[in-house]
């Protein structure tokens, strides 16, 4: 009988405590090294990195200042709500006075641990998250009182089952066809349910006032975020990796402070733009990345190669749900009543999303449109279609995207990889060949 198996041991095998501790400390040490190395490499590429970036370097450390802050706030009675995917309504978490943190994992080493229970065909993001949980590595996952897990793909569907061994998991089921009128109705129900759960956990009612404050707070963050993205449209004043780091820290940083720091960074970058002080040569090939989410720190592999290779490329824009999509869409409220605000929040998270988990008779055209628009706006020279093995939704959309990019005469390179460091050498060769081709095209 299924009920005989105790909760907590349904999936994850029992491991000796000393084995867990040993693994955790070794992976943690390796991870800290990787983070430091990444930052050092970013500093090496961008010699006169702005001072404000130091703040983001500090926040990017999983085991540093931000972990301590969250721990302190949690001890003071605040709740922490983790979320695994962009579909989770951050505004509601903020309105209830809880701390939102993203819990997706970008550790390569823990993916190998996840292999013990997950088949290798499964996307490494999921395997890595499971592995991180096995050794209690991720501080944000450990600190979460509950985790919102939108069931966007098959991996996440089972991930929530495995994680529910340890944590309170709240499911959200995004509809697969978003232009359907009843899809939005169903999603609004989901939002209502999540709202109820958040209110119950935190003990704070989501009222008109605190929701309005939360929405306005996020709108300010969006404003800062868009300001930074806007600066990437012209000559490169910031390297892609630095911008990606700024974007990604918003997933776990205190959003008010993040907004302030991002605005400070933008002020500095605007000054540099006036003085024509660029992060690299202005005619460096401009690359866009689309595909599977790239999560700090280990997934910095590909951006590192692109921006350090010879010839150099610069990431000007991406279509990643851990990148330029995080804060781009604002919640647009017409009438500031609680119902209208909730509708606005629901629409922002469902309708504005360009996740490949959607389908429709027109194809997932919102994603295609986003990519086409970005290519024109950011004057992209070439697109790298980044897929990690197992992320089949992104992999399957490649054929369609390629056909459209071919028509636009934009070279696209399909880069498939794994959560492993072993393919860095051959990946460098492949990317360098692509960038060389882009550079040749620019010269013509």
């Amino acid at each position, binding site marked *: 009988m299924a009920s005989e198996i105790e909760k907590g041991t349904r999936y994850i095998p029992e491991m000796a405590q000393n084995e867990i501790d040993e693994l955790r400390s070794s992976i943690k040490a390796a991870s800290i090294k990787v983070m430091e190395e990444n930052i050092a490499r970013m500093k090496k590429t961008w010699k006169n990195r702005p001072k404000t970036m130091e703040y983001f370097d500090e926040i990017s450390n999983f085991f540093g200042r931000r972990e301590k802050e969250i721990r302190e706030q949690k001890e003071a009675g605040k709740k922490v709500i983790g979320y695994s995917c962009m579909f989770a309504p951050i505004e509601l978490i903020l309105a209830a006075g809880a701390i939102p943190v993203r819990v997706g994992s970008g550790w390569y080493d823990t993916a190998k641990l996840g292999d013990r229970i997950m088949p290798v065909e499964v996307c490494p993001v999921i395997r890595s998250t499971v592995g991180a949980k096995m050794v209690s590595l991720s501080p944000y996952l450990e600190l979460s009182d509950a985790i919102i897990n939108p069931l966007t793909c098959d991996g996440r569907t089972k991930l929530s089952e495995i994680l529910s061994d340890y944590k309170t998991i709240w499911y959200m089921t995004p509809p697969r066809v978003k232009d359907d009128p009843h899809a939005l109705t169903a999603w609004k129900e989901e939002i209502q349910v999540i709202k109820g759960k958040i209110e119950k956990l935190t003990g704070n009612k989501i009222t008109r006032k605190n929701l309005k404050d939360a929405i306005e707070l996020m*709108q*300010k963050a969006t404003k800062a975020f868009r300001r930074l993205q806007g600066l990437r449209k012209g000559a490169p004043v910031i390297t892609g990796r630095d911008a990606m780091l700024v974007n990604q820290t918003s997933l776990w940083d205190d959003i008010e402070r993040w907004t302030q720091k991002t605005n400070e960074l933008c002020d500095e970058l605007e000054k540099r733009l006036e003085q024509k002080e660029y992060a690299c040569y202005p005619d460096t090939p401009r690359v866009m990345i689309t595909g599977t989410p790239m999560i700090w720190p280990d997934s910095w592999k590909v951006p590192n190669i692109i921006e350090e290779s010879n010839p150099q490329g610069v990431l000007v824009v991406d279509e990643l749900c851990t990148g330029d999509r995080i804060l781009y869409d604002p919640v*647009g409220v017409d009438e500031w009543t609680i*119902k*209208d605000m909730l509708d606005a929040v629901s*629409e922002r998270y469902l309708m*504005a999303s360009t996740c490949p988990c959607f389908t429709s008779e027109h194809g997932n055209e919102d994603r295609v*449109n986003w990519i086409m628009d970005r290519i*024109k706006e950011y004057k992209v020279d070439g697109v790298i279609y980044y897929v990690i093995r197992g992320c089949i939704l992104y992999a399957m959309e490649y054929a369609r995207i390629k056909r459209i990019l071919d028509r636009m005469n934009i070279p696209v390179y399909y880069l498939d990889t794994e959560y492993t460091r072993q393919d860095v050498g051959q990946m460098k060769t492949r990317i360098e060949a692509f960038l060389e081709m882009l550079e040749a095209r620019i010269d013509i």
Partner: protein
Amino acid sequence: MLEIIAETLRTTIAVGLILAGILTILIWVRNLTKKLSALRLFIQTVSVAVIFLGLIIGPFGLAEWAYLGSAPKDIVIGTNILGSPYPDGLSVPTFACYYASGRTTTCVIWQLQSYIFPDWSTSSVYLTTGLERLAIAFGLLVIISIVFGRFLCGWICPFGLYMDLLTRLRNALKIRHWTLSERVNEGLRQSRYLIIAAFLILSVILGMRAIAGVELISESELGRYLELPFCQVCPVKPLFVLVEGGLGFMNLDYALSQTMGDFALTGWYLTSINIIILGVVTAGSFMVRRLWCRICPLGGLIALFSRFGPFKRLSLIKLTKVEEKCTKCGICKRVCPPQVTEVYEKKGDDVTASDCILCFRCVEMCPYEGCLKVEVAGKPIYKSKNWLKEEE
């Protein structure tokens, strides 16, 4: 009895108007036209003032009309066309009600009905023949529709302003609007053409005398009221009569006395059907944004000559969308006062719908730069921009 009702109405309306005026000024000062919707409110107010300029300027150089007390006479534009008297003046397809005092222009529905009945020949009042008058009214309708389209509904129409003020009042009370289902909206949209057809046919039937010499209704009192079938059900007529009566611009006692039977069952200035419909529309548009616009036959007429067939290409003001910039976030659909779905659904280019009142709320609220555009004769004059920037 009648006097008490009139007195109560007068006071209520006067107080209401003063409060609404203060509210409008406050809202406007706060936003200072930084927002398009504030600018629209301002233009709507100015338009109402222009349409009823006679109330402001007063009976300058004109004799007072004894029946209506101290009512200033209308300052109608275009009373003399090509040397021949045209006493009703030029028409604009907006609710510049004929029955109200001090107007500068006339509602086109009134003119169309009026000129089709009772006779097409010249008279002591009109030196133009009925056919000529109809041609002028109809020609103006088509030209103005092509040039302005339903921009008139969103920015000029006094009844639109009335509904927008109701919406603002509801917002101030923090009540959420009701959304009508797509089916109900579609029903309203189609029934406005039924209304147009019905009142025109009715006008023709009642105007048989002019065309075929058959007199269906004798020129009795009742006949006088029924010549203009739509005006007897229109919610705008009683609104203006009551407001002007309440403000003392019109002798309400006189207006109410122009009736047949008890409590204005049928009447020149007010009918019971008028008042009931006004009540229903007021209550309805308090909860549903721009409810009347969805069924308005006048809007339907404008739409007919600006959104369909060859007129679609000719019309000057257009709403366009760049499909690539759209993420289908749905904001345009949610913020639209008459709940137009075309802007959201259509795949780019011209997205102007027949129900669209061109208030440009969607363009104002669209968070994607350059996605939605207002084009006048092909030239973009207003684009959606990153509205987050405006906060500071």
